[in-house]
């Protein structure tokens, strides 16, 4: 990423605060305060840098590492992986400058590590996070939070008890396109949201190459219930978070069905899931994900009486039609002091069918950032200034809880309400 792109993102963040005012940031994007206030041009002394250890340097972890190398305020001080190819690759990616560990507990013992980034298989998130927070480290942990709801709660509780930052990798919360969309939604451009749909469809087996059979579960942990809830925790949690964010509520119950109907290859998690989440105000999120057809791809659709947003596509579709072309012609003429014939007379105009309504882009230009870089910049800034945003962790927590309870609803074939003991304020 070049400097201009970085600056244009920062400018965007600042523009969000200028355009929307501080109340929108405070109410809807408090985690953006960090970036909005940051001066990107400042020169950093070594003592200004935060020292980070990365635990789990597989595909996601190495991507986070690459992003962090672009952030001047971060020094990658240590890496850790218990799978030797990843261990070797991580050392190489840091030019052997970072200390390298196989056991994360050794990494946590290093006094001058300020924070850790955790990108391990899901079932290891909770205990590593809790150990790290208790060791006085700030934590950035990839989503979902944990394999079971109780562990998510324990992570939040430890975060609050220790006063250390816990950020979960919901990068859409830092994606300019999503932020702008939330501003529009908050300004009432869709009206009150009455329905949400989200889906993530792929056509592949979701497997990674396994060099030797005994490594199957270590490599393909996403396919086994002991380690993961499959599509729910690895994909759906992102989109449920978006829906929660757009609506400003968290779902209080879920029903669902799923199965393995195509990839009958020994996996334990569903290769297709289909759920309905109900929110306190009566709005539903209809969610589905499958791995045997990719035609519909990936999308979150937010609908209200005034319009629709497709957030992945970054488009907004108004229920109000555009002005007549002849009228635009007239306005242009008047503005240029021209008197001309207005082409208007014809049979009554009727609205386009949905397939012909091409919509409008939420952002004029695509900043080509899915939010990953920004979320890591925000993490670095929060760590440096010890900023804790309670709303952020609520967003992350309820996205994880919803994904896990959705998985349970499918497994148990029943409607599951969020239990009181799992609710946080």
């Amino acid at each position, binding site marked *: 990423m070049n400097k201009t792109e970085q600056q244009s993102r920062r400018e965007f963040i600042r523009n969000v605060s200028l355009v929307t005012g501080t109340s929108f940031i405070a109410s809807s994007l408090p985690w953006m305060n960090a970036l909005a206030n940051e001066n990107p041009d400042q020169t950093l002394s070594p003592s200004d840098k935060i020292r980070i250890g990365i635990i789990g340097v597989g595909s996601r972890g190495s991507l986070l590492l690459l992003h962090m190398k672009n952030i001047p305020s971060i020094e990658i001080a240590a890496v850790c992986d218990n799978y030797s190819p990843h261990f070797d690759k991580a050392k190489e990616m840091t030019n052997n400058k970072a200390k390298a560990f196989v056991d994360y507990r050794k990494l946590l013992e290093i006094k001058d590590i300020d924070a850790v980034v955790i990108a391990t298989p899901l079932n290891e998130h909770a205990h590593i996070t809790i150990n790290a927070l208790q060791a006085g480290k700030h934590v950035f942990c990839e989503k979902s939070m944990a394999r079971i709801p109780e562990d998510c709660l324990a992570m939040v509780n430890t975060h609050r008890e220790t006063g250390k930052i816990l950020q979960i990798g919901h990068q859409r919360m830092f994606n300019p396109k999503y932020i702008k969309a939330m501003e529009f939604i908050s300004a009432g451009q869709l009206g009150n949201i009455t329905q949400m749909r989200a889906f993530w469809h792929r056509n592949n087996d979701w497997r990674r190459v396994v060099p030797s059979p005994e490594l199957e579960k270590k490599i393909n942990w996403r396919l086994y219930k002991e380690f993961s809830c499959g599509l729910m925790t690895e994909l759906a949690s992102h989109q449920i978070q978006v829906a929660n964010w757009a609506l400003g509520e968290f779902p209080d119950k879920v029903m669902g069905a799923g199965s393995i109907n195509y990839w009958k290859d020994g996996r334990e998690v569903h290769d297709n899931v289909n759920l309905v989440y109900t929110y306190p105000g009566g709005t539903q999120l209809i969610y589905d994900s499958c791995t045997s057809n990719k035609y519909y791809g990936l999308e979150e659709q937010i609908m209200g009486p005034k319009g629709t947003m497709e957030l992945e596509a970054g488009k907004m579709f108004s229920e109000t039609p555009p*002005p007549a072309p002849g*009228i635009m012609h007239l306005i242009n003429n008047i503005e240029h*002091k021209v008197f001309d014939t207005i*082409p208007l007379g014809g049979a009554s105009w009727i*609205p386009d069918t949905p397939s012909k309504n091409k919509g409008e882009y939420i952002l004029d230009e695509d900043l080509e950032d899915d939010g990953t870089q920004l979320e890591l910049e925000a993490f670095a800034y929060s760590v440096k200034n010890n900023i804790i945003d309670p709303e952020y962790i609520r967003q992350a927590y309820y996205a994880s809880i919803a994904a896990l309870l959705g998985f349970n609803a499918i497994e148990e074939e029943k409607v599951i309400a969020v239990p009181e003991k799992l609710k946080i304020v």
Partner: protein
Amino acid sequence: MKESLYHNHFAGMGTRLDLVLPDTDTANGDTVFMQIKAEVDRLEKKLSCFLPDSELTYINQHAAKNPVKVDQEWITILEACNKYYKSTYSCFDVTLQQNFGKNHNKLSGADNIVIDKNDATIHFSDPGIKIDLGGFGKGYALDYVNEILRFHDVKNALVSFGESSILALGKHPYGNHWNIGVQHLFRPGENVFVFNLENINMSTSGMLARNGKLRYRKTALINPVNGQPVEKVRTISVKSAKAIDAEILSTALYVSPQNRKKKILSNFPESEAIEAIYTNDEKVSIFVLK
């Protein structure tokens, strides 16, 4: 650039209304716009046969069984429809058979709407009919829009309701009137005829084309004599002092048999009508019907 130029639009009555006020500022423009929108919303809730909770839907569901109590506006509207039914020699007919288009192509006639002014009720003497105000509503609404504009002392305005119904008040800021072109169905941007409008309304009926192609092979309009959809590719444009006259005449003349058109127009001495007829090779001939 002109300092005050207000324009805005909204969706209503199944189409869109565009408002252009060349010398009105934003604050005044918004006031006028909101009032127009509220009025169109009110009329749509009253007159629409598509909204399940409109007054017309209720009338259509009940007036064949029992007289339905209605307000004074309904009496005025339906009396006007009956008057137009007569003055267009049944070419403007708001009644349709309920099962029209299935296996039932019989037309009924607006005289089957029985209006009791004393009791303020209406009743269908033919139990199979329903009312469709599709060829009435936009014109009726535009006359209200005209009143709102005059109430706010707006001297110059162009209002387009679905591009088919136009109200031109005063003049274009750089001309002596408004020039509105009737568009060529198959050559977008090309006008087959230009109306000079000043304090007058214009309405066009015909087939809907988009990007030079007919949107539907058949129109929504029905020939009242044979009960068949009107199929010949053509448009009728009418200019009248009242929007409702322009609306009704363009509909009536569009569906009327050739030999009835002059007779109909003789009942509307201040209106002018232009017919554009297209041949198979998309050439167009223009006829002044007056």
